[in-house]
C-alpha cells in the first residue's frame, strides 16, 4: 500500500491535566476520505486540533507524508500542506468576506495564485461573490460556513481536516455543504472529516473510524460499521 498522508501512532493529548486523546492510531491514505465519528465530548475536535498543531500532544507520533510533525506548531504545519477548517468556522469577524478568503491564501506560494483561487471559490460558492465586500460578522450561519469552507480551499491542501461542517445548519444547507465537500474529495484531495453521526456522510466516506473516550474503537467501511450490532445500537438512533 502507498505511504499514508497522515499517520498517527499512540497519540495522547489534552488540556492541562485533562487527557482527552488516549492512544489514537489512525492513518489516512492519498485520495482517501476518512470520516471520524463519535459522540460529543469524546475528543474528535481535540484530535484534529492536535494533528494541526494547535495543541501539543503529550505522547505519540504524528507523521505527515512520513515526516514527524508532532512538535511543529500550527503556523508551520499549514506550510506543509495541512489545511484545517475548524469547528465553528473561526472567521475573522471584522474582515470582509474577500479578505477572509485571501487569508486562506496567506502562504507566499498561494498568495501569488490568489486571484485564480478567489475565482474558483466564487465559482464553488456563487453567493459569496455578492457578499465579497461585507464584513464576516454580518453573514448568516450558512454563509459563514461557506466562507469557512471556501477559505480552506484557497490553498492547495495535501490533507484537509474538516470539523463538523453540518454543525448548527438547516438540513438544506447541510446538503449544499456536503455537495461542496464531495466535489473537493472527487478532485482527489485527501480528507479527514469529523462528524457526530452517520446521517450525512454516506456518499463521501471511504472509511469510517469511531472515536469513543479518546480512542478509535472501530474502523471500517460505512456498511461494515452499520452491520456491526454495537455500533449500530449506539448510532442507529440518528439514521
Amino acid at each position: 500500500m502507498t505511504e499514508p498522508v497522515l499517520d498517527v501512532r499512540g497519540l495522547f493529548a489534552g488540556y492541562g491535566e485533562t487527557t482527552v486523546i488516549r492512544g489514537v492510531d489512525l492513518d489516512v491514505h492519498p485520495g482517501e476520505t476518512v470520516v471520524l465519528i463519535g459522540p460529543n465530548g469524546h475528543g474528535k475536535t481535540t484530535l484534529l486540533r492536535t494533528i494541526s498543531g494547535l495543541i501539543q500532544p503529550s505522547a505519540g507520533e504524528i507523521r505527515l507524508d512520513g515526516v514527524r510533525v508532532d512538535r511543529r506548531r500550527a503556523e508551520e504545519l499549514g506550510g506543509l500542506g495541512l489545511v484545517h477548517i475548524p469547528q465553528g468556522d473561526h472567521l475573522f469577524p471584522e474582515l470582509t468576506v474577500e479578505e477572509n478568503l485571501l487569508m486562506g491564501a496567506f502562504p507566499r506560494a498561494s498568495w501569488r495564485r490568489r486571484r485564480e483561487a478567489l475565482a474558483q471559490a466564487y465559482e464553488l460558492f456563487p453567493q459569496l461573490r455578492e457578499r465579497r465586500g461585507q464584513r464576516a460578522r454580518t453573514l448568516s450561519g450558512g454563509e459563514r460556513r461557506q466562507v469557512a469552507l471556501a477559505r480552506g480551499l484557497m490553498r492547495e491542501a495535501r490533507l484537509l481536516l474538516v470539523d463538523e461542517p453540518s454543525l448548527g445548519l438547516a438540513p438544506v444547507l447541510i446538503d449544499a455543504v456536503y455537495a461542496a465537500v464531495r466535489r473537493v474529495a472527487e478532485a482527489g484531495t485527501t480528507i479527514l472529516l469529523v462528524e457526530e453521526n452517520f446521517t450525512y456522510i454516506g456518499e463521501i466516506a471511504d472509511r469510517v473510524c469511531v472515536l469513543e473516550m479518546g480512542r478509535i474503537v472501530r474502523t471500517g467501511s460505512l456498511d461494515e460499521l452499520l452491520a456491526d450490532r454495537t455500533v449500530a445500537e449506539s448510532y442507529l438512533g440518528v439514521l
Partner: protein
Amino acid sequence: MADLVAILTSAVVLGSIYGLVAIGMTLIYGILRVLDMSQGSMVMAGSFVGWAILSSAGWNPVVAMVVAFVLTFALGAVTQLISVQPLLGRGGFDFEMITFITTFAVAIVIQNVALEVFGPRQKGVPPVFDGTVEVYSGVFLPYQSIAMALVSVGLMALLGLFLARSRWGMAIRAVAQDLDAARLMTVPIRRMFPLVMGLASALAGIGGVFLGGLYFASPSAQTTCTCSLGSSREKKKKRYPFSLRTVGLIFF
C-alpha cells in the same frame, strides 16, 4: 479669537503626536493583549536620540528621525522578546496583568539606563525645524509644530494604508481578531509579535524626537507619558477586564 486659534492649533499639533504614540499602544494591545508600559520609554528614548543628533551641529532632522525609528524599533522588538514572548501560550496566570508588570519592568530599566548615561538633568532639544509662521494676527506657529503634525498624520496614514491594503497588514488585523484561525492560515505569529511591537515603539520614538523639541529630553519623561496614555485608553473603551481598570486607578 486669537486665543482660540492659538489653543486650537496647539491642540491639533499635540493631539497628532499623542495620537501617534497612542496608536502604537492600541496596535500592541489589539494584537498581543499587552498593555505595553514600555511605550513611554520609547518616547523618552526618541527624545534623547533627537537631542544627541540635533544638538551636534550639521545633523539633519531626517537623520534624527531615521535613527530614532531604527533604534526604538530594535528596542521595542527586544522588549517584546524578553518581556512578553516567553509568556506566550502559558496558562495559569493573568496574561494581561503579568505582561503589564514585565513591560513596566523593562520601562524602568530603560529609564535608569538613560539616567545613568545622560544624567538626571533635562536637556533642551533644538527644534527639528527652525522659525515660525504667523497663521492669524498675533498667533505664531513654529515650523516645528507644522512638521510635527504633518509627520504624525503622514505616518498614521501610512500605517493605515499598510494595515488596510498589504498582505501583512491584513494578517495583523486577522491575528487581532482570531489568533488560532490566523495560525491555521500559517501566519507566523512568533515572528510577527516582536515586529509589531517594534513598529509601535518606532512610532513612539519618532513622536519622542518631536516631543523632546517641544519640552525637554529627560529620563523621567517616560513615566508621565505612559501614565497619561494608560488612563486615556482606559476611558475610551470600557470593555477591559477589572485588573486593567484597577491598574489605571493606581497610576493616576
